[in-house]
């Protein structure tokens, strides 16, 4: 069975009796959002891991730490989440050993872009989200990429995953410039929860990382568990 290249093409992916016609990026479900605040960034993920309609685990985090103040979220097909993370970590470690310095957020974006575009005609089904602070200047940075590596570096927030459309709506209304870390936590937490509550394939709680100059605060939010 050959998976189509463009995620808008649909295919019957289930071999069970109750077949669904879905996009591959929605096979496992999951959502990630990142926001910029005042001298801080926040990135949040839902915790559901499922196979189409069936929920398998409720503790699957799809946001990973790849540097002291650098996080990447990889929503999409979970096998690719895992593989892209492994291959990316390999490249990051080699870079840090060769260059003797930590990867900057924008450099991480370039590396992810390269990794994804290498598979332009048979892509990884992940749409990454990066959030971090520059190791030297401490400038906040967020960006999102599509599955073939096109980056988007806005000044406010980025969203990705099965509830991305609801997330856009929630973030657009709740985000303000220069939110302090605690306010940013509330903003991103509420945006994510209310967005994925309207999505069957995301949810089962959220984990939020707020990244400040001197610390990273990770909080687990309990939401409606369905």
């Amino acid at each position: 069975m050959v998976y189509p290249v463009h995620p808008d093409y649909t295919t019957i992916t289930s071999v069970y009796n109750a077949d669904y016609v879905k996009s591959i990026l929605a096979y496992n479900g999951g959502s990630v959002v990142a926001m910029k605040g005042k001298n801080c960034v926040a990135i949040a993920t839902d915790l559901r891991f499922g196979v189409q309609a069936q929920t398998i685990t409720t503790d699957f985090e799809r946001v990973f730490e790849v540097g002291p103040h650098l996080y990447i979220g990889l929503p999409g097909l979970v096998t690719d989440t895992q593989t892209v993370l492994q291959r990316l970590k390999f490249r990051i470690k080699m870079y840090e050993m060769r260059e003797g310095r930590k990867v900057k957020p924008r450099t991480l974006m370039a590396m992810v872009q390269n990794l994804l575009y290498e598979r332009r005609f048979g892509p990884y089904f992940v749409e990454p989200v990066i959030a971090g602070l520059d190791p030297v200047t401490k400038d906040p940075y967020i960006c999102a990429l599509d599955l073939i590596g096109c980056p988007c570096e806005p000044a406010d927030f980025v969203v990705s995953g099965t509830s991305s459309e609801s997330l856009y709506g929630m973030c657009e209304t709740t985000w303000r410039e220069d939110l302090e870390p605690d306010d940013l936590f509330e903003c991103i937490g509420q945006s994510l929860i209310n967005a994925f509550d309207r999505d069957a394939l995301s949810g089962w709680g959220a984990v939020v990382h707020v990244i400040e100059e001197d610390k990273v605060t990770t909080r687990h939010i309990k939401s409606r568990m369905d």
Partner: protein
Amino acid sequence: MATERYSFSLTTFSPSGKLVQIEYALAAVAAGAPAVGIKAKDGVVLATEKKHKSILVEEHSIIKVEMITDHIGMVYSGMGPDYRLLVRQARKVAQQYYRTYLEPIPTPQLVQRLAAIMQEYTQSGGVRPFGVSLLICGWDLDRPYLFQCDPSGAYFPWKATAMGKNFINGKTFLEKRYNEDLELDDAVHTAILTLKESFEGQMSSDNIEIGICNSQGFRRLTPAEVQDYLANIA
């Protein structure tokens, strides 16, 4: 390339443990035109002699001090044609780095990659080592860099160094004249004096080439600028 026909390396150990091909390559370098590099507080200077065998040679068509990226420059002692290949490869390496990381290549990274290429030619089938030593200058992350790359693939960071004909005298001269507080202008002046030590005849803006690298990036000095510095020496 000859590597398709030869599967064995032509650079092999002698009983005393030396790689004679590399020794010979270094001899080719030592017979080449002198080149000097000096690191100052606020920049780096590269200078080289550009003597021509005949007065009929069109001097300004041959360029020895080459730009690799906006912020990195290079000069050599030894065989010109080998140098041209390395310039091309250095430029390619720098652009590939930019494509992968969207960041200008740090000078030490370029030097490491270039040195790895030079080392390949001492251990691959059917090829000979490069007959050049390179002087690479760069400015990134708010500081100057000066490196030398040898035919063996070894690379050295320098504060100041000389290569090519009479390099021993050149280095001795620099050991006396160098100090950590040199500004770029003084460094250019010192570089010209170092070249003068081994120069036969009259120096002019037609037979030496100077490049500088500072926070504004790398550039070659125009003949007029070179003339100004030369006037200060006389």
